[in-house]
């Protein structure tokens, strides 16, 4: 048995260390995480409402009008419906993987929210590698989709998952390359730093090509029409989430809409000056910009048909990536010349 600690400062040190972990930092993280979960849910409900209403008005119909004012509570009712639905697992499915797949898709999304600066001060963790953290965790998404497709014991699911993986790999590269151009200009991966660097001019002026590439590639990254190949409903029934029901399906849904928010937020941070703007508080400006980008993505979905899988890959590898690379080299050249 080891002797009891004789160091007179032991308890003081212990208290100091413990208070570091249990103290304000922990509370900030905990409250922040809860706030994120709340925000993710409300955001998804709002986006579903927005998507259905925008789709309705594009298609010259009022969309849902029954539950609440102008159908305002319809997404809530849908959520309740999904909550009470039976969770089915197909025979022959790998039960364990099948059950964890929605979680694997959904959890990384929460992590990405931690570093998003809603305003100059309203950010759960203002860390130096924010951009890297978002990219690395949103890449995990693919693993979940592959698990879902594999575990479903359904050929349509598997094809959808395979498509999804190759699509995400292909479109991650142009996203990274176009974001890298901005990072080169700011010398920082901290999202707040990037926003602060745009105090005079938004980067969309300096980096129009990168902005376009980022927007297109992030639409593809979130599997939305015209790039919704993994769940192409005309071909693959519903792709990788064909066999999922109830809340398991809802988690995929939540992840999709939250991912939409994340890429739109990144676009706002990288190219539209984040929370910067006159008169109104930063939070309002940030949300305005984010939902503007989301609006563009939604309108695109209800306007265009779906591309074909091989054309999609060609588009990424032969057009987006070369242009993004060129943009990167060009940016470097300019920085070298000017700076």
């Amino acid at each position, binding site marked *: 048995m080891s002797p009891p600690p004789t160091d007179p400062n032991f308890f003081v040190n212990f208290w100091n260390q413990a208070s570091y972990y249990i103290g304000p930092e922990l509370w900030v993280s905990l409250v922040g995480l809860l706030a994120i979960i709340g925000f993710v849910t409300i955001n998804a409900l709002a986006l579903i409402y927005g998507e259905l209403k925008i789709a309705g008005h594009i298609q010259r119909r009022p969309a849902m009008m029954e539950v609440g004012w102008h159908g305002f509570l319809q997404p809530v009712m849908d959520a309740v419906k999904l909550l009470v639905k039976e969770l089915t697992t197909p025979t022959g499915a790998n039960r364990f993987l099948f059950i964890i797949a929605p979680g694997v898709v959904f959890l990384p999304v929460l992590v990405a929210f931690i570093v998003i600066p809603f305003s100059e001060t309203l950010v759960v963790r203002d860390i130096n590698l924010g951009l890297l953290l978002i990219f690395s965790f949103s890449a995990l998404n693919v693993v979940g989709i592959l698990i879902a497709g594999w575990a479903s014991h359904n050929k349509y699911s598997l094809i959808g998952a395979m498509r999804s993986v190759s699509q995400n790999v292909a479109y991650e590269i142009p996203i990274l390359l176009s974001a890298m151009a901005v990072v080169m200009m700011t010398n920082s991966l901290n999202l707040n730093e990037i926003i602060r660097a745009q105090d005079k001019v938004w980067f969309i002026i300096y980096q129009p090509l990168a902005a376009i590439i980022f927007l297109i590639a992030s639409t593809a990254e979130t599997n939305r029409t015209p790039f919704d190949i993994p769940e192409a409903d*005309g071909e693959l029934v519903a792709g990788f989430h064909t066999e999922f029901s109830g809340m398991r399906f809802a988690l995929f849904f939540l992840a999709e809409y939250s991912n939409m928010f994340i890429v739109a937020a990144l676009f706002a941070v990288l190219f539209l000056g984040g929370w910067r703007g006159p008169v109104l508080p930063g939070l309002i400006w940030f949300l305005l910009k984010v939902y503007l980008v989301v609006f563009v993505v939604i309108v695109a979905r209800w306007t265009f048909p779906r*591309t074909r899988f091989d054309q999609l890959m060609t588009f990424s590898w032969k057009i987006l990536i070369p242009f993004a690379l060129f943009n990167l080299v060009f940016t470097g050249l300019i920085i070298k010349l000017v700076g």
Partner: protein
Amino acid sequence: MTINITSQELERRISGGLTEQTFWLNMGPQHPATHGVLRVLLHLDGERVVEAEPVIGYIHRGHERMGETRPYAQFYPNTSRMDYIGAMTYNHGYCAAVEKMASIEVPARAEYIRVISSELNRIGSHLLWLGAYLMDLGAFTPFLYIWDDREAINDILNKVTGSRLTYSYNRFGGVHMDVDDEFMAGCRAFIKRMRKRLKTYDRLITGNIIFQKRAKDVGLISPEQARQFGLSGPCLRASGVEYDIRKKEPYSVYSEFDFDIPVGRQGDTYDRYLVRIAEMEQSLRIIEQALGKMPDGAYINDKVPRDLAPDPGEIYFTFESPRGEVGIFIVSDGTRIPYRMHWKTPSYTNLSILAETVRGVLVADVVAIMGSFDLVIPEIDR
């Protein structure tokens, strides 16, 4: 696709190197792209089709047999149920066949009304195809715009026929109800509206780069192939063969109208789209002329007996449905019930080329090609 294998089996497989295999994918009978209960067995190598095999018969109701067990007039409503989207053309064709067989006179006014209603139905059918096809390609919005136009057609036809889908409007010797000025005005307003809308669709769809990439050079059918497989209708015309029953073997009063047969250049799905769009314009022309020339007089020959019993003999009659050439073969033994009835339907023959066309294409193209044939499954199975 979870495979439970023993460790020895796994080792054997790994030591032998990874092997590639093809697999079978069951597309249908319940699949969003087959628009009904058609089943297509796809033999896939990754996403490429090695072989495709349509399996039909899931909605077989024995219409031909029904035709042999009941009087001519009683079988008549069945014709709407074979091709429920082009119901009016089927009604028209069946009546024309029986009239020819029993030598029944049809008043001119009735023929004009039949042509107008059939052509309205043809436009409605092509519109439905267009909406459903774009939905197959992942564009949801055009469907609802197109539905709006089809609704206008349904409203016009509803007023005179009392139905919106399975009209059963024709009778042996004429039509069930006379048309009024409201109907004529409705048709004229529709022509005006539809011309405007066709321009909108042209702007919205024809030039869309994603649509062109999906449709062009996909599902090529040469004119020789089209003839060999007995294609008909827009599928045949898209391959460049100028063949339309309304022109080549005019029935009813089609010979009195001036209209063109639109043909495609190379027979891909894009051409099939263009041909159908052009056909809608031609149908509008026919309706316009028929409205202008509409004669007065009786709308039905009221001397036709309720219980027809044509003289012994047989007849083969063809007419142009929205999907192509329909053939009716009826044998009469002199009684009030047909001795034999056989239908040759265009969807059935058009489907026969599917296996040939989709060989080697991607799964996404299978949907694009199958959709472009405008298959109506109850018509295939009958």
